[in-house]
């Protein structure tokens, strides 16, 4: 029995040790928010003891290592890794800076919020690639260091003049530039040129009314079965806001300039008439008889001739070119206008490079050095060719390599021309709960696409549910 007693004692001592460790671990954790939902707790943050760093860029940088979190996978991920490797071998090496790139998937904003709320600077990044819609939530973190602080600094190699105005506004919040545009895209109409020619069309449709007409003519039926759809596009938030924002420059989608001046509290698409105008026109497409309103495998279906036209982001240009191969000739065109007299155009979307202050001015300067490199004309030219994204630096257009590239691949110039024809005010809104609004619009537009809702019913539903989602967000975060 002596042995049993020793065992008992051993177990109790071990248990006591484990409990003490866990208690100590609890005590050791820094003051943090009790939120379980990082995305809904922005206004309650009690973050950090990070020092305010607004002293401008230093004249020199000490050797250091910085961490870069990105969300690029597939071949774009490879291009990103190559960009980082090139930096480390050239400019980074000259300045003693090493960038470690880390893939963080699409949960990147949640992870940054988690690390920021916990003020876990040891495991935090220095540079973050983030999409525009995450800016309102990320900027609630005191560690986020706005690009505005450095972009026009005397020691900065880049300035706001280097970038397209439309793209700068995409990443501007409360009148401050939050991140430097890195990879952007725009929405395009992709069309099978051979099928359009066979149907007697020499040019793509320029308005929704024409789109409906083309859709009807390009549809091939066998009895009641549709063998070839004229058009495939699922209207979700991305497509809808582009159709709405393109109607006139101040079509902001929501109040406070679409949430860019201050958090958006309501949508304005019901009162300014843009939604009803779009739905009235879109009904013609629905009634064309050859519109596929659900998106399955848009790239593949277009590339295999199932759909004659489709509306997708310009970031798919590379993939579709590869998929279509020599099967047929396809082209990309600007997004059809809701009506011929619309005065703006599609918006640009994408991600920017944002800095995270780890309480180290030298790392901030090193992060800026990397951002200068990644968004420079030469690197953007290479990046754009590798990924299909629109270059963000205006200087790219003057580079011989890019001039030649555009001559050989005129499709890639279409989104840039579309952006130039649009007002810089044409932007996706910062609507705080964009994923929820995406679901709302998708569901309602699916019913509308199936002919189950009238224009008035669909408009009413979208506006009501949009505002309800925003109200709920503000209630939860007030």
């Amino acid at each position, binding site marked *: 029995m002596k042995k*049993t007693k020793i065992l008992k004692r051993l177990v109790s001592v071990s248990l006591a040790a484990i409990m003490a460790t866990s208690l100590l671990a609890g005590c050791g954790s820094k003051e943090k928010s009790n939120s379980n939902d990082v995305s809904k707790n922005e206004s309650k943050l009690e973050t950090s003891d990070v020092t305010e760093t607004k002293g401008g860029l230093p004249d020199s940088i000490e050797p250091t290592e910085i961490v870069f*979190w990105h969300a690029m996978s597939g071949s774009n991920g490879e291009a990103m890794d190559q960009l980082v490797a090139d930096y480390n071998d050239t400019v980074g090496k000259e300045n003693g800076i090493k960038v470690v790139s880390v893939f963080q998937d699409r949960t990147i904003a949640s992870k940054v919020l988690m690390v920021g709320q916990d003020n*876990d600077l*040891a495991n935090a990044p220095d540079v973050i690639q983030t999409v525009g819609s995450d800016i309102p939530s990320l900027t609630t973190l005191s560690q986020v260091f706005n690009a505005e602080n450095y972009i026009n600094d005397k020691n900065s190699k880049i300035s706001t003049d280097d970038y397209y105005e439309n793209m700068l506004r995409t990443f501007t919040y409360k009148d401050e530039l939050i991140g430097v545009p890195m990879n952007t895209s725009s929405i395009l109409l992709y069309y099978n040129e051979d099928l359009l020619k066979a149907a007697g069309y020499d040019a793509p449709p320029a308005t929704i009314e024409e789109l409906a007409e083309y859709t009807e003519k390009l549809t091939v039926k066998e009895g009641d079965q549709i063998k070839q759809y004229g058009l495939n596009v699922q209207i979700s938030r991305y497509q809808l806001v582009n159709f709405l924002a393109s109607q006139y420059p101040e079509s902001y989608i929501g109040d406070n300039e679409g949430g860019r001046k201050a958090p958006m509290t309501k949508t304005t698409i019901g009162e300014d008439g843009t939604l009803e105008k779009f739905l009235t026109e879109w009904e013609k497409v629905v009634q064309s008889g050859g519109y596929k309103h659900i998106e399955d495998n848009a790239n593949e279906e277009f590339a295999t001739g199932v759909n004659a036209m489709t509306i997708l982001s310009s970031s798919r240009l590379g993939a579709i070119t590869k998929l279509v191969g020599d099967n047929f000739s396809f082209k990309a065109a600007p997004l059809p206008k809701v009506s011929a007299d619309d005065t703006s155009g599609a918006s640009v979307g994408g991600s920017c490079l944002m800095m995270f202050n780890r309480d180290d001015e030298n790392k901030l300067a090193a992060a800026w050095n990397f951002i200068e490199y990644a968004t420079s004309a030469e690197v953007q030219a290479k990046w754009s060719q590798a990924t299909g994204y629109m270059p963000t630096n205006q200087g790219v257009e003057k580079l011989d390599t890019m001039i030649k590239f555009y001559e050989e691949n005129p499709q890639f110039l279409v989104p840039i021309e579309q952006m130039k024809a649009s007002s810089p005010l044409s932007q996706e809104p910062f609507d705080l709960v964009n994923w929820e609004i995406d679901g709302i619009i998708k569901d309602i537009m699916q019913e509308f696409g199936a002919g189950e809702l009238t224009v008035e019913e669909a408009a009413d539903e979208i506006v009501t549910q949009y505002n309800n989602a925003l109200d709920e967000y503000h209630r939860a975060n007030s």
Partner: protein
Amino acid sequence: MSRKKLSSVIFQIVCIALGIIILFPIIYAVSISFMKPDEILRRDIHVLPNSLYLGNYHKALTKTTLIRFLLNSFIVTFGASIVRLFTASTAAFSFAFFKFRGKNIIFMLYLGTMMIPADILIVQNYATVSSMGLVNNYLGMMIVFFFTALNVFVLRQHFLSYSATLREASFIDGCGNFKFFYKILLPSSVPVLTTTFISSFVGVWNQYLWPLLVTNRNEMRTAQVAVTLLNFPDESPHGAIMAAATLILIPSVVIFLVFQRQIKGGMMAGAVKG
């Protein structure tokens, strides 16, 4: 054919058909992993590959460090499952054999944890793990999987099927609690322990979010991340994704095949006493 035989044949046909329906997505995924890109994108229905094209496997293995990811997954899964077995069996032992004040309340609290969705604990868990300095660390990746109430519950139910006199008899023969636990109870509970281990293995193996959140270095990622790394909405890498998914599936299938007899035994044993 007698009526009994006929109904047995029909029953078996229905079972096989159900099995095929359930297995079909997996069979199709494996089939796609051997198809060339143009075969995958063909418009006509095409279930089996024309030839055994290995390019997708080559891509899955070269475009990501899949082998390293698989090793990470294995370390985390194996470690977490072993520890889980230990925590579950010791807790279940005390709930089944010891008498102490508040035992039922504590057990209900244990079961109560099953009602808390794991996702809402993520932020707090991260804060704890990070304050313990376990970010980018195997221990940090597996620590949240060290305990589940379900495993405690299953083992407790199993241990309750043992007569209390068995423990008393072993005490008379000179056993202590610990010796009774590891010399008598555990060896006779192998089927249940195996089931616990396998369910834990499959559960932890399929984890994606937590290992991604608690690691900030590419070389520390788990196998599930490899599938995401190959995927990009603007591309069509179906073949490579299916190849990676097939490779990731292999360990779970092997574990299941090796221990399937014990799983059956474990399920039956769990059903004996409620």
